[in-house]
């Protein structure tokens, strides 16, 4: 790019402050960046590092409390700060557009899709009335909406999450923006849908030549999409440069920390160890006079790091904000505690056994008087699983595959339509949690996805755990309970002071630790964890995974770990169950499931996950379509409709057999074993 040309976007020494309840918070400081036309840059970092604030300031939408305290944002050389409201509207209509994290809430629930899209064009002065509808239709076709005409007349809630995101993308590109800001555009989506959306974005970018500012904490995704990356920490950019260089050989200790806490899809737990970054992002109220990462950095040296540090060039085309980047190689890495050898599993007892569980939901319109339109949807189809003490079973699959239904049936929140659920030899089939004995309830506990909504924010941690100890642990006397609460806090590595804090004041990671402590209060035999890390930041996620592993090792509790994050499952699980539309398509030891031969669905899931090491040009064919529902009328293999290798006249008619490809490794497929696992991932 010519150095003289005005860059599309230029941010100079940006400082953004938010007015808080008692003091001002410094959200962003000393941020400068440049983005040329058609370029794609990622902003990465933990939550609270100021990524979204930078993005919103480029839209000049900081809300009531935010203000740009210093610096300038220039778009095509024009200062955004001096623009009038009318100029800004013009800019938002055609200059900069945005794609949001949660598409379902970014669309007006009471306005039809077609109307919401047309609105973008109506605001253009020269758009003639007649030309709007065809252009909207064309755009819907471009973003891969299956039935564009019909979709125009639908409301957002009638579309799936992936389709809603396609609509938001269509809305953004209708404005023909020169710059597109994407704020975690795929975080709320399944891996397969994520892969589709990324594919779509890459295509749209190529066709329209749009520049992108891509906010994400998914480094694999960043690697696949962006040429350049800026790492943000505590409101500053701490490292920036070419994506492959920065993710391949990070210079700043923070970037190193981010990279080393990503679970790997291509390696098993025995081959590497995840390192979480200790501590939390600090909240600043004034410009820092020292390295903001110092307190969390094991390379920090007093005297060198506690002065003001500016970002400066390190290696070729990489800038780093670190006083000691030259010496880092000489330091010993963080002392990784030696991993205790894996204990041999004793298979003699069975903690949990689910036999031929089926669950059918009756879908009935609430206003349907005569039951004409009632239909059945199967969320579970002859599912059988067994679990020994200390073992972890990972359950993976797209949303709607029946993972959560299985968890709810095990917990006794729902009754199965048929089949048996046996916990520690007790048949608890159909026994709702209220009908279970105290002992049965104590033995099966759950950790939920969102700790914000599972802990009462007004209760203190001490109260929450004390009650769990009393009800589940059966400890009556006050001193015993206190000792037990302290033991639990120690187990989840929280300091004892946390006891007096209200749950609402804890960070997301701390809350999830409390939720884990609560689940383990009664020394349960089985804990069901339903997406326990998907609402958390990467480094916190890693810490919770390590925590679950260590708690499990100490207590010998069996774990059912439900997740759509395959790399996480590969790291934590001993055995894996791949589910699709209520069917178990593949089950076996973790190494067997993640190595060929694969079920075609497993392979599609693995292919969809972007890897940090993978080059942008890596061949990639995302799984098309979305999981529909499985009704009793459906025949054959549930995956046949989306399967590339589907054999007509066989897969769509006959239920597939269980192929035994190893000890306890089952693949439910019509294809011969030799044909399984020849895809890109194999």
């Amino acid at each position, binding site marked *: 790019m010519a150095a003289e040309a005005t860059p599309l976007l230029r941010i100079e020494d940006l400082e953004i402050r938010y007015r808080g309840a008692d003091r001002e918070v410094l959200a962003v400081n000393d941020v400068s960046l440049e983005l040329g036309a058609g370029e794609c840059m990622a902003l990465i970092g933990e939550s609270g590092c100021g990524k979204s604030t930078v993005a919103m300031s480029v*839209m000049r*939408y900081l809300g*009531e409390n935010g203000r740009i305290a210093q610096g300038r944002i220039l778009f095509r050389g024009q200062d955004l700060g001096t623009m009038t409201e009318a100029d*800004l*509207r*013009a*800019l*938002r*209509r*055609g200059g900069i*557009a*945005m794609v*949001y994290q*949660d598409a379902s*809430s*970014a*669309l*007006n*629930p*009471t*306005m039809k899709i077609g109307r919401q899209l047309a*609105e*973008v064009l109506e*605001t253009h002065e020269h758009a003639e009335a007649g030309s709007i509808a065809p252009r909207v239709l064309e755009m819907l076709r471009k973003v891969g909406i299956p039935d564009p005409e019909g979709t125009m007349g639908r*409301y957002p*809630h*009638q579309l799936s999450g992936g389709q809603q995101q396609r609509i*938001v993308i269509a*809305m953004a590109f209708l*404005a023909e923006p020169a710059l597109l800001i994407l704020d975690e555009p795929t975080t709320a989506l399944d891996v397969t849908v994520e892969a589709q959306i990324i594919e779509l974005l890459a295509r749209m970018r190529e066709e329209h030549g749009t520049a992108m500012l891509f906010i994400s904490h998914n480094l694999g995704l960043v690697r696949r999409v962006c040429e350049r990356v800026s790492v943000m920490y505590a409101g500053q950019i701490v490292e920036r440069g070419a994506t492959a260089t920065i993710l391949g050989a990070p210079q700043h200790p923070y970037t190193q920390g981010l990279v080393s806490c990503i679970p790997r899809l291509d390696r098993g737990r025995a081959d590497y160890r995840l390192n979480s970054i200790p501590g939390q992002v600090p909240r600043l109220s004034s410009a820092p006079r020292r390295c903001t990462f110092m307190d969390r950095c094991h390379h920090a040296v007093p005297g060198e790091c506690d002065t003001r540090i500016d970002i400066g060039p390190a290696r070729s085309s990489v800038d780093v904000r670190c006083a000691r980047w030259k010496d880092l190689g000489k330091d010993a890495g963080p002392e990784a505690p030696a991993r205790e050898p894996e204990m041999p599993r004793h298979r003699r007892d069975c903690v949990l056994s689910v036999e031929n569980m089926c669950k059918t939901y009756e879908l009935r*319109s*609430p*206003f*349907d*008087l005569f039951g004409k339109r009632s239909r059945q949807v199967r969320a579970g189809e002859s599912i059988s699983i067994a679990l020994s003490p200390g073992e972890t079973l990972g359950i993976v699959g797209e949303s709607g595959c029946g993972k959560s239904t299985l968890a709810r049936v095990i917990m006794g929140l729902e009754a199965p339509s048929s089949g048996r659920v046996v916990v520690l030899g007790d048949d608890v089939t159909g026994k709702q949690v209220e009908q279970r004995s105290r002992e049965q309830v104590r033995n099966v506990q759950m950790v939920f996805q969102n700790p914000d909504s599972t802990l009462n924010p007004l209760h203190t941690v001490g109260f929450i755990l004390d009650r769990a100890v009393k009800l589940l642990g059966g400890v009556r006397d006050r001193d015993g309970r206190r000792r037990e609460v302290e033991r639990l806090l120690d187990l989840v590595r929280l300091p004892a002071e946390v006891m007096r804090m209200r749950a609402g004041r804890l960070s997301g990671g701390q809350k999830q630790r409390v939720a884990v402590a609560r689940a383990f209060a009664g020394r349960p035999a089985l804990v069901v964890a339903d997406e326990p890390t998907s609402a958390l930041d990467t480094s916190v996620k890693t810490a919770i995974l390590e925590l679950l592993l260590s708690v499990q090792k100490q207590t010998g509790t069996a774990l059912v770990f439900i997740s759509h994050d395959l790399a996480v499952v590969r790291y934590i699980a001993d055995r894996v169950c791949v589910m699709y539309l209520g069917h178990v398509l593949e089950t076996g030891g973790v190494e067997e499931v993640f190595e060929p031969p694969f079920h075609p669905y497993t392979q599609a899931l693995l292919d969809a996950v972007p890897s940090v090491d993978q080059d942008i040009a890596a061949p990639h064919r995302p799984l098309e379509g979305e999981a529909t529902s499985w009704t009793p009328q459906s025949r054959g293999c549930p995956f046949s409709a989306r399967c590339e290798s589907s054999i007509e006249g066989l897969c769509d008619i006959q239920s597939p057999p269980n192929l035994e490809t190893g000890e306890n490794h089952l693949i439910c497929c019509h294809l011969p074993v030799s044909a399984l696992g020849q895809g890109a991932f194999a």
Partner: protein
Amino acid sequence: MNTILIRRLASSLVTMIAASFIIFMLVEASPGNVARKTLGPFASEEQVLLLYERLHLNDPVLVRYGRWLGVLVGLQADPLQDPDLGLGFEDPRGDRYFGNFGYSSMMNMPVADIIWERLGNSLKLAALAFATIVPLAILIGTYAGLRANKPADRAVTIVTTMLASIPEFASAVILASVFVVWLGWLPGTSPLQTAGGWPIYLQYILPVTVLALYVTAYVTRFVRTSVMEVMQTPYVRTAVLKGLKPRQVVARHVMRNAMMAPFTIILLQINWLISGVVVTEVVFAYPGIGRMLLEAAMFGDIALIEATSLITVAIAISTQLVGDVGYVLLNPRIRLS
């Protein structure tokens, strides 16, 4: 949509029948003798016994309830109107017609002659108040909600909190002392008769104002909160970042979503405005249905109590029906789920 309507209508009918049974039970099957209540305290024991016999008050409750319903819908003759009883209950419509609520012992005329006129008066008052309240509340509430926590919003909040906490009798007395006693611009009573020298339209002003002040303040606060919440939703941000003008954002994206929550509350006000404004009606001697129910209850006029209660319940159920259907129309997520 049609199935929703049919379903809601059917359930309204069931509710109405259940409510009528409860009203019947409370009034006629409650302790105390219906014959005695009808004849009043001065009738002799003999007369009461005779009436008791004639009315078949010994029959099981369900049989009596069936008979009562029969009279109401005009399938059966009203036993009290039987000239043999010598009660003198005469109705020009005969003793068998739809909507035969019986004979009011307090007013000494058929209930049907009194109640429709009173109901009409109440409806007029409610309609005038409602027509004032809804536009005002939406206007002021939206104005404040769009400027959440700014001085204009604070002012609205303070004023509405004050107005909503002044009871009707207090505001009625304050307004009357200013506009009637001091300025003499308006009449102090509103009997809806021109005999006092005041034209009818002036007689409406004070009662309507008293009701409007109170309810507008209350509804405004709901509208304000709802608008404020919708303004913070991501889809309003989307609309702003699309480059729409503020007016377009509010008209297209905020209003419909912000009206969903207050809609139910606004409709609930209709019930109260028609049949619950006893205090205002008493203060201004307004001949409405609320005051009549109070008088009937104090007199022990069984037929009038039953008729008034039934109509009140019917109004409540109809607004509920309108509310449900309206909410479904406003919210496509319910309509199309």
